[in-house]
């Protein structure tokens, strides 16, 4: 049986792992390659690395980091941040990333989804959606949460699937950093509307929150950062707990 995935996310800034709260205030959380190796030992199912400062100058830096990670770990991993061209995607995949994730660039240029899927296959393309509940609607935000768009999260997810995205990484900006649980309603709705895997992100604070998102929505995986980096929840313990509660995980 296909297992639900537990995915630690490493936000990268100038080569270090950092953790923010509600898309703001950053704290240092260590060397990304060392953290990645720790997560492999703990039997994380997959890793995500997001370069939150990436600019054109730093693109080479990210590729170098991806190469180091790929040489050291034998888990699938996704890389994102500042990807806006087919060339960027090719560089990161060639450096050893299994998947790339795009967000702002896909909103500005939806054709990019089709192009990436056509050149490299849907399996390597994760569409990230940062969503916020505004005036009774879940809207898509871009530029690391700084810019609002008029896109509705559900419609955008459906369109992305049709264009060739292989997976959706859905972050609730309202829940992110609050540790009060995943945003269940929007996760449930998007997972029900698309036939590609949806990863829930934002709001994980307790082991119960993971059980909740897996039992009450159709998401395929759950992503978290801070609670794993600072050791507040240990992944082996989380997985034993989930298994006990009847959630299918790899222990």
């Amino acid at each position, binding site marked *: 049986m*296909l297992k639900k995935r537990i995915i630690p996310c490493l936000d990268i800034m100038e080569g270090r792992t950092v953790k923010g709260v509600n898309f703001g205030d950053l704290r240092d959380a260590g060397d990304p390659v060392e953290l990645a190796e720790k997560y492999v030992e703990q039997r994380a199912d997959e890793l995500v690395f997001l370069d939150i400062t990436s600019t054109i100058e730093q693109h080479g830096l990210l590729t170098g980091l991806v190469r180091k990670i790929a040489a050291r770990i034998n888990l699938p991993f996704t890389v994102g941040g500042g990807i806006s061209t087919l060339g960027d995607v090719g560089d990161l995949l060639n450096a050893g990333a299994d998947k790339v994730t795009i967000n702002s660039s896909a909103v500005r240029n939806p054709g990019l989804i089709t192009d990436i899927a056509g050149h490299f296959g849907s399996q390597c393309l994760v569409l990230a959606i940062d969503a916020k509940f505004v005036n009774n609607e879940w809207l898509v935000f871009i530029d690391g949460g700084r810019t609002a768009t008029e896109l509705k999260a559900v419609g955008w997810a459906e369109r992305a699937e049709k264009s060739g995205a292989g997976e959706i990484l859905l972050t609730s900006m309202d829940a992110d950093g609050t540790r009060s649980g995943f945003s269940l309603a929007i996760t449930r709705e998007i997972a029900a509307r698309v*036939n590609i895997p949806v990863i829930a992100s934002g709001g994980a604070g307790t082991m119960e929150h993971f059980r909740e998102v897996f039992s009450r929505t159709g998401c395929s995986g759950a992503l978290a950062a801070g609670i794993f980096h600072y050791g507040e929840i240990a992944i082996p313990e989380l997985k034993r707990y989930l298994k006990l509660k009847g959630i299918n995980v790899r222990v």
Partner: protein
Amino acid sequence: MIAILKYSAGNVESVSNALTRLGYESKITDDPGELMAADKVIIPGVGEAGSAMKYLRDKKLDGVIVALKQPVLGICLGLQLLCSYSDEGAVKCLDVFDAHVKKFPPFDKVPHMGWNSFTALKGALFRGIKADDDVYYVHSYYAGITDFTTAICDYVLPFSAAMHKGNFYGVQFHPEKSADAGNLILKNFLEL
């Protein structure tokens, strides 16, 4: 020397990284002489069947591969290319395994992506692998169960997680991305 087939497939480096971690030297190549001289050949696999077969035919590698005598391991798309026909790109493949590669019907999320187990394990590749070990899959197309099937995975329907015929081996999952279980399967292949 282990030869890793170079063709229009992405992420070939993952396989060479995995071999390096296991202490094996490898070379990524599409040179027929190097492929024939290698101790073992791995056909890695992230890509699209139609364009992959076109690359192999253009380079006249299709005939070279099927004539190889040393152990050959096809991974993911690599396994599918060793089958007779793929619906992905509607293309005739290498025809080592008599199997028709089809797309998963949309009764569940496609691609089949993530960790899944397998059953009915047979043969040297799975020495030391336990029934509850999981491996990492990411694919939208599958080969059904055949006489050559040596492991079965169930997602939407039962399909071949692994196949074996003579010196040819194929695995639908990615051992190079499957942590300890994957390392052991790769090691078993390298020690054949």
